[in-house]
């Protein structure tokens, strides 16, 4: 079962009630994670396996289990692609969770990961390309 960890020190995040703001200092992108995204992010960031997180959501929300699985997997792929998470090996099989009665569960809303790249251009002005004789980075004059 896949496990992940936050891509520190490049990635920093702050959790609010219904949203998490993430910044990838390496790529210059920042992100807003909403809907069921914060719940999933926090669980994955804690080192819970992907399968375990999927089962947790299937037990907590009403909806097609396969659709929830696909949604969580796709969200995790997005986090990996954005280099917000990195793979951290495998974990033990997740225990099955007893679902809450259907009527008590809120409907599942797919997690959202919204990317903002407007600071990327500035970040990519990285001046460090070479070093001088004393070992200090040289300014890119371009």
């Amino acid at each position: 079962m896949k496990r992940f960890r936050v891509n520190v020190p490049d990635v920093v995040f702050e959790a609010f009630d219904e949203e998490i703001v993430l910044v990838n200092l390496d790529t210059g992108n920042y992100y807003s994670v909403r809907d069921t995204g914060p719940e999933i992010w926090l669980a994955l960031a804690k080192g819970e396996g992907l399968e375990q997180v999927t089962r947790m959501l299937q037990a907590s929300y009403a909806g097609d289990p396969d659709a929830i699985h696909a949604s969580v997997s796709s969200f995790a792929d997005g986090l990996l692609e954005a280099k917000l998470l990195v793979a951290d090996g495998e974990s033990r099989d997740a225990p099955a969770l007893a679902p809450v009665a259907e009527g008590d569960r809120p409907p599942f809303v797919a997690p959202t990961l919204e990317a903002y790249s407007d600071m990327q251009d500035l970040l990519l002005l990285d001046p460090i390309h070479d070093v001088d004789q004393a070992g200090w980075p040289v300014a890119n004059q371009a």
Partner: protein
Amino acid sequence: MPIDKGREFAALLEAEAARAEAVAEGAIEGWFAIGGLTMRLRFLGSSLVPVIAPAFAHLEIAPRDHAHLTLECWDCAALGLELPSAPVPMAAFTARGELQGLGAGVHAAFEPWGRQLSLFDAARRRAFFCVGNGAEIRRWERAEPVRAILSWFMREYGRQLVHAAAVGNADGGVLLLGRSGAGKSNTALGVLKSSLAFAADDFCAISAEPVPTAYSLYCTAKTIEGDWKRHPFLKSLNPDLDMFGDKTIYYLAETVPEKLIAEFPIKALLLLRHGGNACHAVPASPNAALAAVAPDTARLLPGAGPEVLHKVGKMVRRLPCFDFFLGPDPKRIPDAIEALMTRLDAERLEPA
């Protein structure tokens, strides 16, 4: 015995500073109160005085017995000295210029233009700003000098530098948030003709406890080329124009010292938005305010990381946040800010 690279490098710079002082035949000193803390600036040679000191002119104080930070500055080219060799390999430099792997308590960063080396030694309350050639420091950097050192220094005392403008008066004020081009500088300069005062147009320091407070760092403002022509009153501020079309810089302590304020309690956070039929404020979420200020702050400050988000996150949760639409008439903006603060005061006294 493990080698503490940071401590070793700090000792090397201390020795270099002593050498610079000997060559310069003394030091030129200035004392400044920044963020409620005392900074003693020692210039080893005169060439960096006009590069650094004017931006802090509004915060100058009489010499004290004690400084929270002693910062020594020298220009190797002017003194015929060499910049010390880098203590870490190329791979240890980050995109923001910080040197990784120095160990706890010592922070350093390098800026290639002018070959600016900044080092902060937290335990010894000392910092060094050593440049290869001060003449090559970019013009706009003179408006916000030694920013990395201020960031480390302020953080040591529970403050955080943030990418925001700040205007207000002794009773309170607002932070103006937004990316470059959002209108921070023009809005901050616009208050000079009102009863509000100017604390910052680009970077200020904040503390979240016990009361969210904004602190002025620099008395400078920057606008894009030509703004001073569109807003005639800016011309009276003696703009430092650049013949190559770079930003126009205003040293406000020279022209309007009475309109500068060192600190005030923060009453609200305004996310600047262009547009609107009139200048007006609409409640916004704290996370929108965080997204408006934290990423840029983290990008622009060497060594800034999770603590930026945590400290700014703490602040945005404690303060009302608004989308602030600037409207078509800049002259009305200061009145709208004052009206908003008056309304917030009234609501605090008479909660709904």
